[in-house]
């Protein structure tokens, strides 16, 4: 039983309100992270091939943290209303653990976002797109993923290369080993296609006539979704953690005021 002073009632009300918000945000976080993990833009193979898919790990942690926040917020509401010291202590300890996990997720997402530079994707594209002389199964799997992803990307977003078609001219590539420069100055999917999936003018495409080939780079189409993903996980998680910080401080203060 707590003191029935007005101050404690207000604190109770605030804590319940705080926990309600945490519960709703937890569900929102889970939903957002499920959305990111489902890879709606089909860019996951590119991350897989960098052998560092931390933003996906961060999103996975986010799914479980969101659910944990929801469950703990219910526990918190029950504990505050019942003024039960044990329950409140359990709530605080579990919340701190969840807090630590969510912190890890936010920091991982933010750090990994800085790793995804244009040069990273350029090098990966040049080394893995249409690579045939793969060394082992893993290498083959990554090359196939990268090839398929780039083919889709160039077709759907009407772009070519990371900065532009000149990427294929400026650097050597695995693609160049199997496709000679005169027949394929750049990959076939850089050509503007008709509805049947063939270039509208193959000679125009090879010449580089504007309108018959995609002259802009794909980096925007890659970094846009990845930025949204990383910042969505990192900053939304940060906002939740800031709010949770105040609720937890309030709960700790409340715990110290609750009678036995």
């Amino acid at each position, binding site marked *: 039983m707590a003191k029935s002073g007005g101050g404690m009632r207000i604190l109770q009300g605030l804590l319940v309100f705080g926990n309600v918000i945490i519960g709703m945000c937890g569900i929102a976080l889970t939903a957002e992270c499920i959305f990111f993990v489902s890879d709606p833009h089909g860019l996951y193979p590119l991350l897989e091939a960098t052998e560092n898919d931390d933003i996906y790990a961060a999103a996975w942690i986010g799914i479980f943290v969101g659910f944990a926040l929801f469950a703990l917020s219910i526990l918190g509401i029950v504990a505050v209303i019942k003024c039960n*010291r044990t329950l409140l*202590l359990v709530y*605080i*300890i579990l919340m*701190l653990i969840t*807090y*630590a996990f969510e*912190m890890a997720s*936010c*920091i991982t997402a*933010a*750090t990994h*976002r*800085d*790793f995804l*530079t244009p*040069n*990273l994707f*350029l*090098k990966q594209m*040049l*080394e893995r797109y249409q690579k045939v002389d793969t060394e082992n199964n893993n290498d083959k799997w990554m090359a196939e993923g990268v090839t398929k992803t780039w083919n889709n990307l160039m077709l759907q977003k009407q772009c070519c290369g990371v900065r532009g*078609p*000149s990427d294929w*001219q*400026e*650097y*050597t*590539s695995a693609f*160049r080993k199997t496709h*000679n*420069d*005169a*027949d394929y*100055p750049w990959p076939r999917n850089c050509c503007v296609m008709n509805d049947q999936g063939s270039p509208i003018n193959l*000679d125009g495409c*090879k*010449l*580089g*006539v*504007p309108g018959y*080939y995609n*002259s802009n780079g794909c980096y925007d189409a890659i970094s846009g979704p990845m930025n949204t993903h990383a910042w969505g996980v*990192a*900053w939304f998680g*940060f906002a939740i*953690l*800031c709010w949770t*910080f105040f609720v*937890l*401080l309030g709960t*700790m203060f409340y*715990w*110290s*005021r609750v*009678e*036995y």
Partner: protein
Amino acid sequence: THTMLSLLLLLLATAHGLDAIPTLGKPVLASSTLGGQTTASTFVLEQPRCVFTELQDDIVIWLVVALPEAVANFSNTVKPGSPRRAFQKFPQSTLAYMTLNTTLLNYPCDKTSRDITVLRVGSETTCAKDELRPTCNGPLPGPGPYQVKFLALNGSKPVAQTNWSDPITLRKAQPSSSIPMRGSKHSSSMIALTTILSILFAILLAGLVAMLLWGSGTSGVSSTFSKPEAVTVRRYNTHHVYDQPAARL
């Protein structure tokens, strides 16, 4: 321009004696709006339209591609397709080759046309190694530089030519391993996020410790009443549940 032309002809005639054919214009690369203006093994020239205006339509125009060192002593009388002008022998045993032959009919002078009129040098890959096709328009073997000119032949007699173009250098691909991969540069937002979260977490942990050490009720019990003690106190509580509030007040 007519007087300049005749002066030029006179000069050429005196300089070269027998080989006095008109030299008109100069081949240029196509506009740089074309993405494939120069690649690693091809380049694109403007067609020689409105250049050979005085000749008949059945004259054959050839493109001569040569290394710069062959330009000084280039002979127009060597037949195209002969071993000295075969693409397959370029550049090992010959310094120039001739290709892209077509009649003047295919280069009509139409100033109103807005079509793209270009020639892609190096586009035929199928005949590049075929010795039976010495006039193949095969891919250039290296980044050059190369110089080109157009030569008009009537049968096997040269009747007109253009000047040699400026040296054309093709693109040279760098190895992809040379792309710099800087270690991840930490953005300011990531540093801010990490710092703030760490501080908040530290405050929470400090709060937890403070709470456990000093927050055990307000009845002034010392810190020796830690959590296990609290359980026994609670049991004690149930016997004195009505007394405690009274005692507090």
